[in-house]
C-alpha cells in the first residue's frame, strides 16, 4: 500500500543516509553535511552541543569575516590552501607552580586537547597555539618571552616518531605588546607527526620565561601567582579537507580535477603543498600544462 511503500522509502533513505554518514572514514562524521542529513530526517538542529569558549568564538568569528563575505562566499583574494580551520579548547588543564622570580618563568600550564573531530580526510597544513590576552592583562612595556613546549605522556606514539623521546620540547620567541589581543605560537613542526598519525589526544606542557626589554626579569609581583596573565591556550589546526564535498580553491576550475581522494601513502604530506610557494608552483606547472 502507499503508506507501507512510503515507510519503506523512508527506511531505505534513512539507512542510505546512515550508510553515507558511516561511509566517510568509518566514523560518524560531524561536518556540516551529515548534520544536514540528520536534520532532514530527525528535524532537530543536530546533536546537543557543549557551549564553546566565548573568546575562542570571538576569534573564529573574526577569522570567518577575514575569509568569507557576509553571504558566506569564500573570498577569492586569499592565498592559503586550507579549507578547514578547527579551534580546540583544552578538555583539561593543570596550572603548575606560580611564577618563579629566579628563572623569570612567569607561568606554565599542562593542557590536554581532544582531536576527535579531525577526520581522516583532513590533512594538517599548519598548527598554532593561541593565547587570548584578557583586557585585565597590562604589560608595562613590550615583554620578550621564550615559550618552551613539551608533548608529554604515552600519547606520543613511537610509530609516529620512530625513536621518539618520551617528550618533545620546542622553543619559540615571542613578544607581548600592550595592544595585542591574541598571541599565536606556531607549533606545526611539533604537531605534524602526531596529527598525521591520527593521534586523538595531545598532552602538552607550556612554560613561558619572559624578560622585559631592559633585560630585567619582570618581578613576580607584577603578576601575582594567583592571576596568571594568560588563560589556557587554544589549539588551532589549519587543515586541507580532501573530501569531494569540500571546496578546493587552489586548482583552476578549467581542469576541474579533484585532488586524489586517498593521498599516496608514500608521498604522505608532500602530496599536499604546504606553503603558498608550493601552491604557486602547482598553479604555474598546471598553467604550463
Amino acid at each position: 500500500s502507499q503508506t507501507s511503500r512510503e515507510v519503506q522509502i523512508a527506511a531505505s533513505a534513512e539507512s542510505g543516509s546512515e550508510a553515507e554518514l558511516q561511509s566517510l572514514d568509518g566514523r560518524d562524521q560531524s561536518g556540516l553535511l551529515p548534520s544536514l542529513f540528520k536534520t532532514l530526517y530527525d528535524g532537530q538542529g543536530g546533536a546537543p552541543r557543549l557551549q564553546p569558549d566565548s573568546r575562542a568564538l570571538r576569534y573564529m568569528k573574526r577569522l570567518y569575516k577575514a575569509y568569507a563575505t557576509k553571504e558566506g562566499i569564500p573570498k577569492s583574494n586569499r592565498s592559503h590552501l586550507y579549507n578547514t580551520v578547527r579551534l580546540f579548547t583544552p578538555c583539561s588543564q593543570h596550572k603548575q607552580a606560580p611564577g618563579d622570580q629566579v628563572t623569570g618563568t612567569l607561568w606554565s600550564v599542562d593542557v590536554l586537547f581532544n582531536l576527535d573531530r579531525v577526520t581522516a580526510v583532513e590533512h594538517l597544513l599548519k598548527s598554532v597555539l593561541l593565547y587570548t590576552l584578557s583586557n585585565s592583562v597590562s604589560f608595562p612595556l613590550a615583554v620578550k618571552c621564550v615559550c618552551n613546549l613539551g608533548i608529554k605522556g604515552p600519547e606520543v606514539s613511537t610509530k609516529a616518531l620512530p625513536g621518539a623521546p618520551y617528550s618533545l620540547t620546542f622553543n619559540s620567541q615571542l613578544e607581548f605588546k600592550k595592544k595585542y589581543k591574541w598571541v599565536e605560537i606556531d607549533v606545526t613542526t611539533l604537531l605534524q607527526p602526531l596529527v598525521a598519525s591520527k593521534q586523538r589526544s595531545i598532552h602538552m606542557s607550556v612554560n613561558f620565561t619572559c624578560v622585559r626589554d631592559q633585560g630585567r626579569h619582570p618581578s613576580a609581583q607584577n603578576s601575582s601567582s594567583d592571576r596568571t596573565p594568560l588563560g589556557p591556550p587554544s589549539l588551532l589546526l589549519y587543515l586541507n579537507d580532501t573530501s569531494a564535498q569540500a571546496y578546493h580553491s587552489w586548482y583552476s576550475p578549467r581542469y576541474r580535477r579533484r585532488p586524489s581522494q586517498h593521498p599516496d601513502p608514500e608521498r604522505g604530506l608532500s602530496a599536499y603543498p604546504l606553503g603558498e610557494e608550493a601552491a604557486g608552483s602547482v598553479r604555474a606547472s598546471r598553467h604550463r600544462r
Partner: protein
Amino acid sequence: GQETVSSELKKPPVPASFNLSEYFKQFLFPQNECELHDFRLSFSQLKWDNWIVAPHRYNPRYCKGDCPRAVGHRYGSPVHTMVQNIIHEKLDSSVPRPSCVPAKYSPLSVLTIEPDGSIAYKEYEDMIATTCTCR
C-alpha cells in the same frame, strides 16, 4: 502580372477570426521560462543557529520554469535535450520533458559549533546554484 496582382488584392486580407497578438505570442519568451530564483533563508528559521554560527543568511537559489522546445545554446543544453523533447511530443508523452536544473554552483563558508564544543570553519563546494540548464 497585373491580373495576378489585382486577383491578390481582391482576396480578403486576413480571416476576421485571426488574432495578431496570439500570432506573435509564439515568438515571445515563455513567461515562466527556466531561470534562477532566490530563496533567502536564515539558519534561525530552521532553528539551526545553535550550531551554525555563520553566515546568518544563506541564499542557496534554485532553478524553476519551463524548458523551451528549442533550448539550443542558451541553456548550454546538449542536443540530447532536443531529442528528449521530440520523443515527448511525437512518440511517447510518458517520457518527461527536459527539466530545469542547476548547471553550476558556488561554494559556501560555514562556521559551526561541534558537539564537543570545538569550533570549525569549513568551506563546502556546490552550496549555491549560480546558473540553470535544461536537461
